[in-house]
Every structure is written in structure tokens, then in C-alpha cells.
């Protein structure tokens, strides 16, 4: 579980995050949604410790990030898996080497054990015949699978995903969303997903935090989105005709 308490962040005097507080629950897919430029990525990078917050506190299982020693932070980072928007695969390594990399870095296991574990997660994310391929030889959907496999190979407690299905076709995007949800439940991890894709929200969103201009404008479940009278949320969520129709049908029922 991750507790976020009143965090703020600014860049060169321009505030990007303004007093955000929320809780990301264990075993659930927690979604951060909002328009481009609403501060989602900065928020995620603050959670990851890539950006220091100006004020407020982030607690991982009641341990505050700013009070952690370097050793504690190092241990925490090994408990975090991250899926980047562009997958961020190491292009000088094959798919298998990318997935083996965190284990080679942080465990004392020999190469055979590491390879066995890597193949286990490769199977879990349904990557077929891709072990020896390089990232530029596989499709966008496969890259996301590799990124997910690399993120879960160390059995993380926390999984962060930045726009996991951006640039994917709707069918592959749903497959990736479902894979993340299944893994969250199977491994009982705290998953935080940064997205502006409303299909993802409807598909896998268990807890949703809506950001607007760097502030938390709303939070709730995907069911509550249909009933909310928060104008900012409805303007964002029902900006497409499809979702307007979905809402009308839902409210009629």
C-alpha cells in the first residue's frame, strides 16, 4: 500500500503538483487519469523517487520515502517494477537478456537459475519465440510484454505503469490491460497505472484518481464515474461520443 500525503512539486517556480493526497491499495489496479499536462507523469516519477517532492510525504507500507536511508531506498527500488511508456527496453540486449538483467544485477543466482526464472515470466506474459530477438525486431505489443516481464521478474511489491497501452491497437491494448490486472491479482501487488485511455479505466480501473492542473480533482471507482456530478471528471471522461452513449445507457438502466 502506498500513502501519498499532500505532495507538491514545482519546476523553476511553476507548480506542477499541488497538494495531492491519496492511497494506492494493495492487490488493486490504481489508475491515475487526466489530460496531457495535468501532472500525471510527474506524479508517477515522484512516487518512484525519480523526482524529489517540494513538500508532503510518500509512504511505502508506512515507511516514508524521505526518511529512508540509501540502503532502504536501494531495497525499495528492487521491490518496484516499472513499465515505461516507450517500454524503455535496453536496445543492446535481446529480449531474454532484458528480462534477466535485474536478476543479474541484484541476485547472486547463477545464470541458469536466472534464465529459468526469465523463461517462467516470458511464458507468463505469453511471449512466443522472441527470446533471441532484439527490441527493434519485435512489435509494440510484444515490447510491452517484455517490459512487463522485466518489471515482474524480481517479484515486485509495487508495479508502476506509465501509459502502458499508448501506441497500441485497441485489441492489443485490452490484452495488455488484462495482463496487468491478472498479474496484480496473482502476485498481490500494488499497481499504479498512469493513463488517459478511458477504455483502460473501464476495463481494469479499480481505484481512479483524476488529476486536473496538478490537483486531485476527484477519486473513486469506475462505477462511481458514471454517477459523479463532478464536472471536470464528466468533461474528461465523456469527451468522446461513445462514452456519452455508454453513460446514457448506464443511467437509463
Amino acid at each position, binding site marked *: 500500500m502506498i500513502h501519498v500525503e499532500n505532495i507538491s512539486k514545482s519546476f523553476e517556480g511553476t507548480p506542477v503538483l499541488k497538494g495531492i493526497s491519496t492511497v494506492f491499495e494493495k492487490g488493486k489496479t490504481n489508475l491515475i487519469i487526466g489530460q496531457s499536462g495535468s501532472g500525471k507523469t510527474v506524479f508517477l*516519477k515522484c512516487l*518512484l523517487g*525519480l523526482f524529489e517532492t517540494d513538500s508532503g510525504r510518500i509512504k511505502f507500507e508506512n515507511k516514508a520515502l524521505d526518511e529512508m536511508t540509501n540502503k532502504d*531506498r*536501494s531495497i*525499495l*527500488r*528492487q521491490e*518496484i517494477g*516499472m513499465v*515505461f*511508456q*516507450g517500454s*524503455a*527496453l*535496453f*536496445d*543492446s540486449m535481446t529480449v531474454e537478456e532484458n528480462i534477466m538483467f*535485474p536478476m*543479474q*544485477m*541484484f541476485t547472486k543466482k547463477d545464470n541458469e537459475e536466472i534464465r529459468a526464472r526469465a523463461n517462467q515470466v516470458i511464458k507468463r506474459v505469453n511471449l512466443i519465440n522472441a527470446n533471441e530477438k532484439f527490441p527493434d525486431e519485435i512489435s509494440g505489443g510484444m515490447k510491452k510484454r517484455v517490459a512487463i516481464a522485466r518489471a515482474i521478474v524480481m517479484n515486485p511489491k509495487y508495479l*508502476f505503469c506509465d501509459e502502458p497501452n499508448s501506441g497500441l491497437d485497441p485489441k492489443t491494448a485490452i490484452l495488455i490491460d488484462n495482463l496487468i490486472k491478472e498479474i496484480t491479482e496473482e502476485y498481490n501487488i500494488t499497481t499504479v497505472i498512469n493513463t488517459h485511455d478511458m477504455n483502460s479505466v473501464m476495463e481494469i480501473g479499480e481505484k481512479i484518481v483524476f488529476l486536473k492542473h496538478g490537483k486531485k480533482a476527484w477519486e473513486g471507482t469506475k462505477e462511481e464515474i458514471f454517477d459523479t456530478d463532478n464536472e471536470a471528471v464528466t468533461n474528461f471522461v465523456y469527451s468522446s461520443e461513445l462514452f456519452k452513449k455508454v453513460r446514457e445507457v448506464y443511467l437509463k438502466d
Partner: protein
Amino acid sequence: MKFLSNIGKYFLMLQSVFGKFTKWRILKQLILKDIDTLVIGSLGIVAFISFFVGGVVSIQTALNLENPLLPKNLIGFATRQSVILEFAPTFISVIMAGKVGSYITSSIGTMRVTEQIDALEVMGINTYNYLIFPKIVALSLYPLIICLSMFLGVFGGYIACVYGGFSSSSEFIEGIQLDFIPFHVTYAFIKTAFFSFILATIPSYHGYYMTGGALEVGKASTVSFVWTSVVIILLNYLITQLLLT
């Protein structure tokens, strides 16, 4: 102010490079890979340039010796002095700032743009050590390249001079041995050692701290080449002033 801030950031980066070390089995692979790319991969171009520039130095010296009273062995002497003191250590380093420096900046810059550096940081890896330290170690073999450049430069001069009919083989060899001061070679290698560190770290700095997209990677490579060359030339002046005057 930005200039001073960049210098400060550069030294803080160097401090971090020697901070938390990457696991040896990973580091070893990275060092070997960088030796292959940065050192072995540069041998061909250095050999080519050194041989022909040595030849040109020798021909130009010969063409300027119009006075028949001047001994022909001066061609060998001038070629040796030019190649060992300046051409091999300094100008090959400026050429390497273009070849190796641009490669380092663009490879690290691309990793920054594609979030690969963020991915390493999230894993808890000291990215400065992981990315820059292997390059510093690999380029510690750079004096070997300069050694090869010195040999081929003088050899190129010999071939051009003797086969161009400017002097005899024995006169050229006599010139090479004339007033030889071994400290000049030491001085050249001291310079080279400093330049190798500059070649590894300044391009890494420009790649590591770049922001933006693909276009900025190209810009960062250009800026990196300019600054690496400027620092090499200034350091060359400083070291020469300290060691030879």
C-alpha cells in the same frame, strides 16, 4: 551562470561515477564492450589518418628545405617532432572527440530520450557508474592508439620521403634519431592520459544531461564535440606550459 553551473554539474557527475559500483560481472562485460567499440573500433581511422598526415608533413618539410646547406636529415627530424609532440597526441584526440565523443553522447543521449536511463534508476542502479565508468576504463587504453599513431605517422613520413625521392632512407632514419629527447614521448603520453579522461567524460556529460528528443541528441553530439575539442586544446596548452617550459 549557466556555464558555471555546467562545470559544477560535471564535477558532481564525476563524483557520482566513483560512487556506488555496479556488480563486477556486469561491469566487466560493459568494459569489454566499450574497449571493442571505442578503442578497437578506432584503430582503422587513426591508422589511416596518421599514415597519410605523416606523409604530408614529411613532403611539406622537404619542399620547404630550399637551402642546399640544410641537411636532408631535417625532414626525418621535423616529421618525428611534429608527429610525436603534437599530431599524434593532440590532433588525433580532436579527431577522436568527433568519432568517439559523438558516439558516447548520442548513445547515452538516446538512452536518456528512450527512458532507458530512468529504467536503470528505478532499478536502483548508479547510472553514472554503469554508463560512464566503463568508458573511462576502456579509454585508459587510448595511449595505445596514440602509440600506433606515432609509429604510423613517422612511418608514413618515411615512405613519402624516401619513395618520393626527397631524401635517402639513411638520411631520414638519421633525422629520426637526431637530438632525440625521451621525455618528449613521456610528455606526449602524459597529455594523452588527460585527453582520454576528457574524451570519456565530457561527451558522457552532454549525453547524460540532455533533454528533448531525437533532434536534441544530434545537437548534444555537436555541442559535445565542440566542448571536448576546446578543453583538449586548452589542456594541451596548459600541460605544454607546465612540462616543456
